[in-house]
């Protein structure tokens, strides 16, 4: 809900890259005989729409319509007064403001005789959007297009790698601030991280704190974290132009424990640097942590963007193992000499 800097830059997100993404999606739609595809967006589910047109709504909701061929069309319930801002930050596609985006597209679909409409995350489409589609265009078949979209979305391009790398640098620099004085307390550090990231043009920052690693590794927001113990962790999820990364650091005011944490951080950094994208990440992570005397990997989680969520869990725990490709985020939980440690790194 805290929307910061937003803008579009041809050098970072070329129109040609967006056109290539659209062409791949429309080819996949043709293979599935879809007469169109709609993607719902709001601030919790912005990633698919931003991947295609570079836009994230700071508020409200919208639908992106992909026809079988030609330009994409985005309709949003945002006020028409912000249409000028939307156009400035959205390089491609038609933009329309309407209180009823689904009805707007359904009228067009009905007029064109469309029969099969793909929907990303069909099960999660808000009921009012589904009702407007089906009531305005009776007989229209809604087809879940989640797998279709994910297959195309998995192909990372240079633009995505560049935005991800930039977000990772913002996160790294913001969390580096805490090296000098972890004794300042978690809330003060959270404020410093927020300031650093937003001054570096982060679009959004979510900060959570594990207040006492001596007692557990549960993370809470700043209002619920309570007093920090000698060892604690801060996790920052940071967006730059709709591209999200996470970074977590464990800290201690105890110099001996801090030194052990630093050893584990170095081991994780080495793992990221040597990551074999063809091999499952679980054994690689376990081996990297096991190289640190007295340390053991307890669990890990791999997240990446596949659809409308900026990051979603794709491997780890009950989800099983998988290789870690580009633009993923790895979280490792370990114990070292009986003390909890957690860290997250973009890959």
């Amino acid at each position, binding site marked *: 809900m805290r929307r910061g800097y937003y803008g579009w830059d041809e050098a970072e997100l070329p129109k040609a890259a967006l056109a290539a993404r659209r062409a791949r999606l429309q080819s996949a739609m043709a293979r599935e005989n879809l007469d169109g595809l709609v993607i719902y967006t709001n601030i*919790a589910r912005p990633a698919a729409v931003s991947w295609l047109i570079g836009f994230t709504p700071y508020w409200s909701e919208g639908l992106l319509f992909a026809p079988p061929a030609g330009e994409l069309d985005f309709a949003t319930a945002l006020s028409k007064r912000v249409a000028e801002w939307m156009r400035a930050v959205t390089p491609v596609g038609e933009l329309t403001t309407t209180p009823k985006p689904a009805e707007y597209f359904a009228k067009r679909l009905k007029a064109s005789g469309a029969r099969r409409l793909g929907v990303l995350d069909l099960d999660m489409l808000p*009921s009012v959007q589904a009702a407007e589609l089906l009531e305005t265009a009776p007989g229209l078949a809604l087809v879940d297009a989640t797998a279709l979209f994910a297959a195309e979305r998995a192909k990372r391009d240079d633009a995505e790698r560049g935005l991800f790398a930039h977000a990772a640098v913002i996160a790294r620099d913001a969390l580096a601030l805490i090296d000098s004085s972890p004794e300042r307390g978690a809330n003060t550090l959270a404020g410093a991280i927020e300031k650093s990231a937003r001054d570096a043009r982060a679009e959004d920052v979510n900060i959570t704190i594990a207040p006492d690693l001596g007692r557990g590794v549960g993370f809470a927001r700043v209002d619920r974290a309570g007093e920090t113990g000698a060892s604690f962790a801060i996790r920052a999820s940071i967006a730059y132009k709709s591209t999200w990364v996470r970074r977590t650091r464990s800290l201690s005011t105890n110099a001996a424990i801090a030194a052990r944490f630093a050893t584990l951080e170095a081991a994780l950094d080495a793992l990221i640097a040597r990551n074999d994208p063809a091999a499952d990440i679980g054994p690689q992570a376990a081996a990297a942590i096991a190289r640190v005397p007295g340390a053991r990997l307890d669990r890990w989680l791999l997240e990446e963007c596949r659809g409308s969520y900026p990051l979603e869990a794709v491997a780890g725990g009950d989800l099983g193992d998988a290789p870690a490709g580009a633009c993923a985020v790895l979280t490792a939980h370990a114990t070292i000499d009986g003390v909890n440690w957690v860290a997250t790194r973009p890959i």
Partner: protein
Amino acid sequence: MNASALHNARSAILREEMARADIDALLVYGNNWHADSLRYATDFGIQEGQALALVGRDGTTTLLLDDAGEAERAKLETACDVVFAPKLIEAAKSMLGRAGNRRVAAAPWRLMPYGLTREAKDLRISDGAALIEHLLMAKRDFELDAARRAAKLADEGYKVFRDAAVPGAKDYELIAAIEAFFRVHKVPENFMIIGVGGVEVRGMAPPVGKIVKAGDLVTTELTPCVDGYYAQVCRTLVAGKASDVQLKSFAVYQEALDAGLAVVKSGVKASDIAKAENDVFRKYGLGDYVTSEYTRVRGHGIGLFPDQRPQILEDVALPVVGDSTIIVHPNTYHPDAGYMVLGDTIVVRENGHESLGSLSRELFQVAY
């Protein structure tokens, strides 16, 4: 009242409402945009992903979250039975199936996932707006206490914003300053947008890198959240000394806000408040600028969601209810000065209103 006691009090009210309506369970949906029903029922302030929760009449609550980190956080921050459910609809159907042959109210219905509503009959779910919406509007004293704390932080935050709004500052740096202030003061959420410039500025939006120049108007609405409750303050400042035109233009907004506040009392229609504000603009020949071409709303409800019903508009006949919190803000474009904002969060009372904030309603002038 601490957060846990606040939730327990809300939970007791919800159980009473469910019993009165003869509803066996309440299914709530939430995400970071629309989280009010979810927050009321579970006390979880969702940040990422989506959530569904089932609240039984006995108060037991199962919270399904499809984000792994959020599920871990909910275990620490709530008393719910928390489940990480990457396949949210599957998990919800299973949860409803285990609930058995019961009457389940679901809210907010318009955002409830299609994967559930298309099987509403089989799942025995129906629109639960009547059960919970009035609870979200009229606030109890313990809820107003949280709103008061939010309003106080909004006022304090505006001073930080004002200090940062000097010529040469970039719009996103102002956001950085205020968000840092809020995190330090344990405010996890804040909604804000900003406008920087002169007569060319028609509204507020997220920052795009504009640099504050001497004489610019800088507008913002700050909306910090305390224990789930939002309070909003809208103010306009001038980077430097205000011109006579800016001062004269702003006086219309001051008069309009006073006029709107003067008619607020329990039961008055939203349209009456809007009309009182808009009549001031019309009196000065500015009637065109109170239409949807230039302004979204003349205020709105606020609480566990920053933009609750009713919207304060001349075509909205809904009454404002006693003990609800609303913001009255005659924000719009002025052809002589540009986009200006002014508004405060208030509590609707039987014979008037109570202001939650205490920030001066002047056109601020930032010395540099």
